[in-house]
């Protein structure tokens, strides 16, 4: 199993959700997060005073899938969240040792 963690622009959430639905992914966890990467923070000037926007609001999506589906999911997220501009986000893929469905105790892929 793999965990796919994607950081995307907030307004792209609906697109990503839809494109994941299209390939049959139904479960995901969404978090409103703030951070910065190469995009860095920036300054906004208002009435001569500087306001530093140090962390940029983003959405984090977490999905666990079978190894075989990881690539497909990554491609789908990539396509849906791309605007071609700076700050489009990042996707991380990492291995998952175990998954357990609390109600039934099912393990592994069955628990997804």
């Amino acid at each position, binding site marked *: 199993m793999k965990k796919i963690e994607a950081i995307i*622009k907030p*307004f792209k959430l609906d697109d990503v959700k839809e494109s994941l639905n299209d390939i049959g992914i139904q479960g995901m966890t969404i978090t409103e997060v703030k951070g910065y990467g190469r995009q860095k923070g920036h300054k906004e000037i208002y*009435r001569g005073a500087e306001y530093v926007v140090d962390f*940029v*609001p983003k959405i984090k999506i977490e999905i666990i899938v079978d190894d075989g589906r990881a690539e497909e999911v990554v491609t789908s997220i990539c396509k849906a969240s791309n605007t071609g501009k700076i700050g489009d986000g990042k996707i991380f893929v990492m291995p998952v040792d175990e998954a357990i469905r609390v109600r039934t105790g099912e393990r592994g892929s069955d628990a997804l």
Partner: protein
Amino acid sequence: MSESNMELKVKSGLSAGLINKKEALVKRFVQGNAPDFLESCTMLLDDYFQEVIAGSVAARKMAFSRSPVTLVALGGYGRGEQCVHSDVDLLILFEKKVPASTEELVKEILYPLWDARLETGYAVRTIKECLSMAWEEFDILTTMLDARFICGSSPVFFQLMEKFRNRLSRKYVQTSLNRLIEQSRKRYEDYGDSTYLLEPNLKSGHGGLRDYHTILWYARIISDIKSRRDLERYGFLSHDEFATLEGSLGFIWHIRNILHHITGRKCDQLHFEHQNEVAHRLGFKGRDTHRVVEEFMGDLHSRMDFIKQINIMLTEDIQLSKKARFFTSLQKPTQYEGIVIRERRLDFESMERVPGEPELLLKIFVESGRLQKPISIEARRIVGEFAYLVDDTFRKNPSNVEAFEKILSTSLWEFNVLNVMLSTGLLVRFIPEFGAILNKIQYNQYHLFPVDKHSIRCVQVINSFKGKKIDPAHEFYATVYREIKGRKLLLMAALLHDIGKGDPEREHSLRGAEITRKIMTRSGYGRAEVEETVSLVRLHLFLIKTATRRDISDEETAIFCAGKIQKIGLLRKLYLLTVADSMATGPKAWNDWSQALLRELFLKTAEIIKNRDVATLKTSRIIEKKREDVMLLADSLMEKQLMGKKNRGIWGKGADRDAQDHNHGHINGYTHDLDGAVWNRESLLKILDSLNHRYLLYASPQEIMEHLELYRNLKEKGGDFLWIVTSEKGSDIRTVTICGIDRPGFYSKIAGVFFLNGLNILGSQAYSLIDNWALDIFKVMPPKDRLFENEKWEKAERQLHQAIKDDSFLDRLKDRVPAVITTVFGQSDMPNRVQIDNEASSFFTVVEVFTHDFPGLLFVITDNLYRLGLDVRVAMVSTKIDQVVDVFYVRYADNGKIDDPEDGIRIRDSILDALPSVKNVLK
């Protein structure tokens, strides 16, 4: 059977008896036959404990060993307010030491209760322990305040109470009071304000039972009162206040009992899922479930609000100096004659004065807000009774409107005068439209408050921006707040922003804008003030929607917002309104994350609006991108051209245009006879570099390409101007794109020629293109005679040439302008208005004309501007049914804004004179 076994059996028999009796009591309650449930329930428990102790071997042993046991009821049980699933708090008290047989006693008394699943808490203490713990642990102190003797040795109990009181009054009064306030504050943070919440906590929220307990504790700390009734006897509450308090408490306890019964546990939060059932059991009836729940919750909220008000009054007393603590018969005057301060509450000097001076109804709230002093219960009743005196004449009276503005600006978190005004019914009398959102509940996850309370909260949030102690997170809002002018409009918009929600059929911000227009107009606000407030209501979701649904890092988003909002003043107000709206909605709508998104959008939009004509680094990047896109488009067109039609101009031919864009059909083609020349890449780049930035920001690459083609054709062909008429497929509107030498009056002459030919102008944009070339785009209705449409356009073109040569050519048109515009029923009959704004742009004066549509409108205005020596550089003209808002960026031909205010007035009057007057056909 051993003796002790036998005893246990008797005990369990007793507890079974208790449970049976309690079940019977609950049953009677459910049937509606237990009006004194709390007392009865308390008595059942008392009976049980008395019987247990009477038959207890352990208790007898203790009495022999001279440490008799005393049972003391604490907490709610102590106050005699035992609800269906309330905890039972018990103190097992001994004088000096705890005997060894206590464990046995506890088994006898409590095990059966636990087995019967009665939540029972107990403590075993000596008098000394009780006293020392009371000052260490505030919760223990408050339970001691409620202590009540059940059975056992009464001298021990009284010894404890006497010592407790002595120490309390000698040393601990002020610290205890301080801790009481502190504890309440913490509780409000944890549980929120029940007088607003859609799922209020009956016990712990602000306005809940705990507020009443706090009142009682306060009174008990200060003077040794025994019962609730003593609150009135000792002068903590007036007679009316006490009576209302009793009613409110009874109502809440009743709900709490029902809730405990339904859920089968001690549940004090009134969740959505239970509200319907509780409402029905209380006798709220009706076919529409939502309506029933709304009515029920409205009642509950107003009662909780009363408890909250009483609590606030007494908290205020605690913070006041000691001497002011008790009622005095002294009466103090206020700034208004007829309103006095009596017994620390605001009051009418006499009820008889009110019918003759109905404005006192509002004034008492003005004073309440200004002095942050509560209004007496009696005065509230009077306001409610005489609210009918508020009629349209009252509402239109400017001094009443001003009084209301004052009330709005003094409605704060700590002291909510607007909410009191709402609860008396006066607010709805003053703004009848508010009645539609009264107690209106929104069934979703976001909204924690009914619409009316949410609206009032929104006003409070805005007032909090001007507070002295500003939370660092709010500092930015305070900065923006300090810059805005016309704060009363922002407050009005905050109060009215959701008023459209009373009409579920329509989108609420649009409906709300209509209602707001009506209210603001009735209240006698000026046109600009009405328009601004209406815009705020109409756009109140615009920023938050854009911030969450568009890419805010994309400059186009900010340009889009700037285009929609136009003015920095409006943007600032809209931003604060959005923030207040979100904050007043609840934590799900407002967090650090959404706050960051919104602020960034605001800052970027502000920058665009302020630097509209200046190329910033960012805007120039967009423009750069636009230029590249135009070049790419040009390349692809050239390629197409080279492949096929070698001898024809690529952008010049109608046929080619059709091939590029199927949505366009050519009506007339003055550009046909071209020699087939192709744009030279270098010259195209050069022209793109010199184009006006604002134009580049707003026009699409396709449009730019088309316009440049026109420009090139004109230069090659020579002449004053060139135009091209296109029609959009499926639409009966013609777009006339005109490129010409930008000489004074050019714009007004085009408008005049269209008027001359009966071509109705629907909209227009004017740009200064390159050097001294103007580009004007008009949307017009085609001539009625379609058969000879081309001929008609040709004629119009000839006339424009004439008009350019002969300045008086169009003078005859002035007679054709109607002298009066008649509007019919349902149309607005607002008078014409002209607004001169020097702030919106650093290079131009913005002239805004609000009027009604009539033939020749645009010509009349622009011809006037031309005769006044003003150049129209940018024009935004739009017609919506009967309302016209035309915006012109003008400056004097010698490059100056209209700086002289007198000049501004002259210009305004001149335009107003030229416009026909407005008359409603029915008036």
